[in-house]
């Protein structure tokens, strides 16, 4: 009989201790707000292009937090998908073609002598990167442009081009070395040809 009582007491004691521990932890390590949305939002490219079907990056971040697919962001491309997969601990899936394809980063450029000053692109720009006024020609502040494409469609005279950002001496970066294994794997073919070239 006493054994049963002891067992019950011990379990009670354990329950109390762990209860206190859990309670303490929930107070001490309290998570403020919904940081997962912020974290997802931080990974998205913030082009605010709406290609995902949501009006901006944050709504999409909220949708992802709510369980939406992570492969709807063409500007972010595969790297964003991978980062999201890493963050959410889910499988990285290829980009959903339905929402567009990954393109090199670009900026909008207005051919200024064709611009009629309709301000339609200004209204479309989600980050206020286009300057101009009615009947005045407009121009894009390249450093603010996110390359979202949203200004192209509304232009009635099709005077906006998306120009891929070119590499300059300042933005050039060393390419990653060709992984050794691949180089070796093509030993008999391309690899040797390169050697021949080099020699």
């Amino acid at each position: 009989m006493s054994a049963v009582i002891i067992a019950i007491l011990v379990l009670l004691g354990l329950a109390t201790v762990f209860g206190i521990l859990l309670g303490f932890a929930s107070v001490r390590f309290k998570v403020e707000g919904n940081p997962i949305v912020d974290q997802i939002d931080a990974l998205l490219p913030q082009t605010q292009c709406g290609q995902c079907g949501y009006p901006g990056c944050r709504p999409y971040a909220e949708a992802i937090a709510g369980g939406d697919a992570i492969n709807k962001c063409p500007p972010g491309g595969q790297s964003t998908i991978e980062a999201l997969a890493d963050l959410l601990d889910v499988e990285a899936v290829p980009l959903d073609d339905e929402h567009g394809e990954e393109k090199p980063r670009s900026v909008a450029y207005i051919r200024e002598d064709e611009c009629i000053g309709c301000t339609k692109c200004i209204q479309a720009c989600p980050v206020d990167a286009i300057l101009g006024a009615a009947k005045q020609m407009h121009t894009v502040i390249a450093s603010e442009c996110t390359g979202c494409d949203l200004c192209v469609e509304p232009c009635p005279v099709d005077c906006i081009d998306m120009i891929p950002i070119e590499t300059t001496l300042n933005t050039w970066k060393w390419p990653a070395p060709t992984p050794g294994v691949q180089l070796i794997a093509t030993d008999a073919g391309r690899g040797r040809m390169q050697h021949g070239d080099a020699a």
Partner: protein
Amino acid sequence: MGHVFAFHGGIHPPENKRQSTRKPIRQAPLPQHLVLPLAQHLGAPAEPLVKPGDRVLKGQLIASAAGRVSAALHAPTSGVISSIGPYPVPHASGMEGTCIMLEADGEERWIEHQGLADFRRMPKSELIDFIRNSGIAGMGGAGFPTDVKLHLGEDHIVNTLIINAAECEPYITADDMLMRERAEDIVAGIEVIAHLLEPSHILIGTEDNKPQAVRALEKALKGCKLNIDIRVVPTKYPSGGEKQLIKLLTDVEVPSGRIPADVGIVCQNVGTAYAIARAVRHGEPLISRIVTLTGDALGQPQNFETLIGTPYQLLLEASRVSDRKLYRLVVGGPMMGFAVDNDQIPVIKTTNCLIASTYDEMPPAPPAQECIRCGLCEQVCPAELLPQQLYWFAKGRELDKAKHHNLFDCIECGACSYVCSSYIPLVQYYRNAKAEIRTEEAEQRKAEHARQRFEARQARLEAEKAEKEARRKARAEEAARNQAKKKDQSEAVAAAPSGGVGDLKALKTAAAVARTKLKKAQKAVDSARESGSGDLAALESELQQAQQKADAAQQALDAAERGDAQAAGQPDLKQLKTAAAVARTKLKQAEKALKNAEDKGQDGVEALRATVQQLTAKAEAAQQAYETAEKGESAGGADTAKVAELKADMDAARGKVEKAQKALDDAIASGSPAAEKMKAGVEKLQGKYEDARKAWEAAAGTAQPGASPAKLAELKADMHAAGAKVEKAQKALDDAIASGSPAAEKMKAGVAKLQGKYNEAHKAWLDAGGEAQAPTQTEKPDLKALKQQVSIMRTKLKKAEKALEEGEGSEAEVQELRQRHDAAKAELDGAEQARIAEAAAAGVDLKQLQIDAALARAAVTKAERALGKAGDDDREALRQALQEANLKAEELNQTLSRFE
């Protein structure tokens, strides 16, 4: 020679320095074309000051420093600027940069230049500016603008100046030869730097493989009063790295992410010291430097004093290069330099060495094998990193881990790659990873920036919307208030012709406020008196002041009231009337009370009776005053106020009539027996109304013999109101007929009556001169309005059509709408045509035409695009659309071309 410390790691690659030190420094041949990149240094590229065709002299400033971290550029020889444009520059990418191209004339004519007589007497800032204007940038390799480093004495305490003469990279001997042959100038340069930085100690760090240079320096230092030590360190790569040399000479480590000046140390290269000496002593800007030409592919390795801008090819040829043997052309040392594939690239300020190597000398790296983590790299890393781990992370794109493993402390010296037994290009992995991290961070920043801008825009749009809403509301309120005011005014005009009401009100308020203040002051004084506390005098004076103020305010109010009444020359009719009414009411109440009291036989009846009498007297007086005023007014000629009042009376009467009429109608409709009686009432009211109307008309007639615009407007409004009534009535009638109501007959009569009234009003308006204005409006069709109308029509039509489709609405309606739309359209087209014709006659509005043309063109391209995307079904239709668009565009284009 002081104690020398040690740094971790390091390697001992074959030195290969002997080849190029056998001959003294030679003057390189003068090139015909010089290429001068604008970015030869770290920081912002210089801004060109010359344009193609300009003739420049040797040493002339041709591009100025742009910004704090930047360096000026001078013409290395005399000649003509041929062009400014992109050209291959010394860069690992092999890309092009903006360069100034100079055609040498071979005369080598110097611009006037002069050294500084005594730099010690100059203000330091001027001396630094002088050096800055000489275009000097670090000659060791990185090319950091020297003047920036010389400013460090201002905000840092510089204990130690280190002159970097280690030249640890294999092959390079430019500094070695410079020290051997020109130690004097180097010491002179060190003196200038020391003067600017005021270090307590100067160390010249060099490796033990340059004994001749050390001897030359020692000799040059003999007469020098500065506290200079030459420290010879054991030859080990990379002892010439800034951080490594500092560790070697002082045992101090530069904290990660900081600069040596933060620990009281400044490093300068010997070549830089020499360049400073040339500038300060002789006034020569940096237009040449020593370049080592070496490598097995050269027949004559040696050092050249080379003009900046000299193409490599010229130097290689002067060293008898064997094109057959040349396999790899390395700019800089073999450990950190970069290989280029173009020998037309020019020498720049940081080019210290050119290695023309053969295949055997620098064979291509064998294919990389797997890392077996042998740890050799770790043993040689001078930054004490874990290169194999960094490689692991860089390869696996685990960039944050790489960063955590201090990737950014890597100095890219290449020691790890050198010893790697698996031939892994480690440095390239690190460079790539660093660039990736930087790009990622930049993108992160940009994304954050974009997010902020997006949110700011969102907030702005919200705010605008809210503001718009607020404004709309305000406008609505304003309109309502205006209407109310209009009504008020129409009533008040009579009452307050002089417009003194507002002032009066203000004065009244002021008086009230003054009174309140006075009371407060009085109270304060009283309480103070009671409590016997001090400052009574002050309070009393305050009280007096308040009293005065109150009196003044009251006086002002009285005066205003009086003045108001007098100035207007007319009694305030309205007020009087009100007063009379009030008096009457009071009288009535008093009478009632009296009666009550009498009935009940209460006390105080006497008093009440007296009150009643008093009140009666007052009321009579008020009534009299009113009546006299009224009489006086009418006698004094009908004025607008009177007219307005009359009108109001009339309106009221009319309203009553209408109400009664309606009640009567109801009664009749419901067959009430009271109908007869009501009819009589209505007739009576009608009579009254007629009276009022007559009175008004008479008054108005006398007041305004000529139809004034106001009157006209009023009439017009009446007319419109009448018209609206007619319409409404008509509609009601239609409804009634449709529903077969028995009241229809009667209503018809009512409508006819209303119509008559409308006609009357219309006539009255026309009589008053309204017709004069009406036709002028329609004379010129307002294109914009027409357009609007057309678009409205179109919208309506579309809606109707849609409704029709959905089974609602009637065909007829749509038809009608369509007709109306077509008519409007026709009108618009006509107007437009007329306008175009007009424009054509008077010179076309080219801009508009252009826009139209552009729109048409865009339509064509859009159509084309749609065609490209569309399926087979839509093709035909789209093609037609495209053709149409094409035609239109062509037409427009033709028109346009006709005028252009």
